[in-house]
């Protein structure tokens, strides 16, 4: 499949960034409905962050997490070298 010929094709990058964006958005909504970012920041002692900043940082952390798992999926999708020998 062409997906493996171009490890950094636009298709591949978007297929990592886009689904992770969607799931990160969902996770952000659910998480911050239950937890107030200001309380979390206060507990973790990172100093002052506005709530909006808290949501945004939370969103990007979630995105980082979901994007990593999408990249791993992409990575493991490659045929295993031993199996093809």
């Amino acid at each position: 499949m062409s997906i493996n010929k171009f490890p950094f094709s636009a298709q591949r990058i978007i297929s990592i960034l886009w689904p992770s964006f969607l799931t990160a958005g969902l996770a952000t909504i659910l998480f911050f409905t239950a937890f107030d970012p200001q309380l979390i920041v206060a507990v973790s002692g990172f100093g002052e962050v506005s709530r909006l900043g808290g949501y945004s940082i939370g969103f990007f952390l979630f995105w980082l997490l979901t994007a990593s798992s999408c990249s791993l999926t992409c990575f493991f999708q490659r045929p295993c070298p031993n199996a093809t020998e």
Partner: protein
Amino acid sequence: MDKPVLQDDQDSGFYAKHKKVYPREVHGLFASLRVIGVTVLLGFYYFVPWMYWNGKQAVLFDLPNRRFYIFDWTFWPQDFFYLAILLIIAAVALFFFTALAGRVWCGYACPQTAWTEVFLWIERKVEGSRNKQIKLDKAPLTRYKLSRKVLKHFIWISFSAWTGFTFVAYFTPVDQLASSIWNLTLGPWEWFWIVFYSFATYGNAGWMREQVCIYMCPYARFQSAMFDNNTLVISYDSVRGEPRGSRKKGIDPKSKNLGACVDCTLCVQVCPTGIDIRQGLQYQCIGCAACVDVCNEVMDKMGYSKNLVKYTTLNALDNIKTNVFRPRVVVYFVLLIALTSGLLYSMATRIPLELDVVRDRNALYRTTPLGYIENIYTLKIANKDLQDHTYVITMTAPFKSTFILRDKQVKVSANLTTNVSARIQADPVDIKAMSEKIEFQIVSINNPELNTTAKAVFLGPKPK
């Protein structure tokens, strides 16, 4: 089951290289419907943040203060339930309409369609018709071309910026937002989201367009699972149309052994996703009916009967009667009505007041110097109303007890919570069990209808 034949992703030019689609302008019944849909939806989108209700922004998702205001309602994070139900309703509605009428959402109501439509309109106003656009893109860079392109992108970007501003205005009070942009005192995160949303609009509606539908939209990928042979689809009547071929007007097609399709390719030129509907149902087709409108125009001109390309069902194409009220449609419909009425009912009877009781965590109970058993509680009163209220707190217990509050009446400002510390004391001889159920009641003085209760337990030593 005979599923519509869906083409696989074409490998060529995924996202990156692809042939630019220049959709031709189209007029007709469905185009008018789409213009109405787009105008109404985008009109709402740009107008709603400016709407005021009882002196406040009518719709405001105040994330910084964790409150959602929708007219007279205020929603707190605890009310997430409503949002969840709303999302479920939206999903069921999507199932219902898809099963019934196919991709009507895509063709008439999707934001991607709406904003692309606006961007196409701007493009046409600046660069001219489809043919002129193609010519302009092929032409070498001249001052004229440069001026057209700069103008187009300038308008696109301004419109996107307005869109991004509007988006953030749903989350930050609009007057505050406008004035802090004007005074350059806007916070970095607000800036970030305005730019982000503007950029997304510009990219999606200006550059990506049909590729969003084809490659990025999750709904486009799974909608075929909701289709059946009775779902409305757009289809070309190949029995009537073929063999296609050009001809002069007024010639009887039968004499030339031709079908009704004059092979003018207008249906391909108007298609926003750049496909040829005559090749059969394709997964790229967003059901916009532009090809229906344009082909009807052609058929009119030729003096043929309309609907060579039309809304139809797979059953109708096979000469089987279309069944509108099939089980899945009925089930979706019943579900939709039940959920919607349930939500409306619970919103209408919702009491904007909440009482939570938290027991003192340090001790199960304590014995006062006079030998009474004492339990300590924190009452969290959430006033979700838009007005301040003064509440009276009472308590009932199945044993003789003294209820001690610093103030019997508590004033809670609109949309705020107040914690009240309460103590209950009882003589050990009156207590029948180690754990007794008690109940707190709270009622607003100005409006007795605003009342609620909360249960708790009173703990004590083992009764002798």
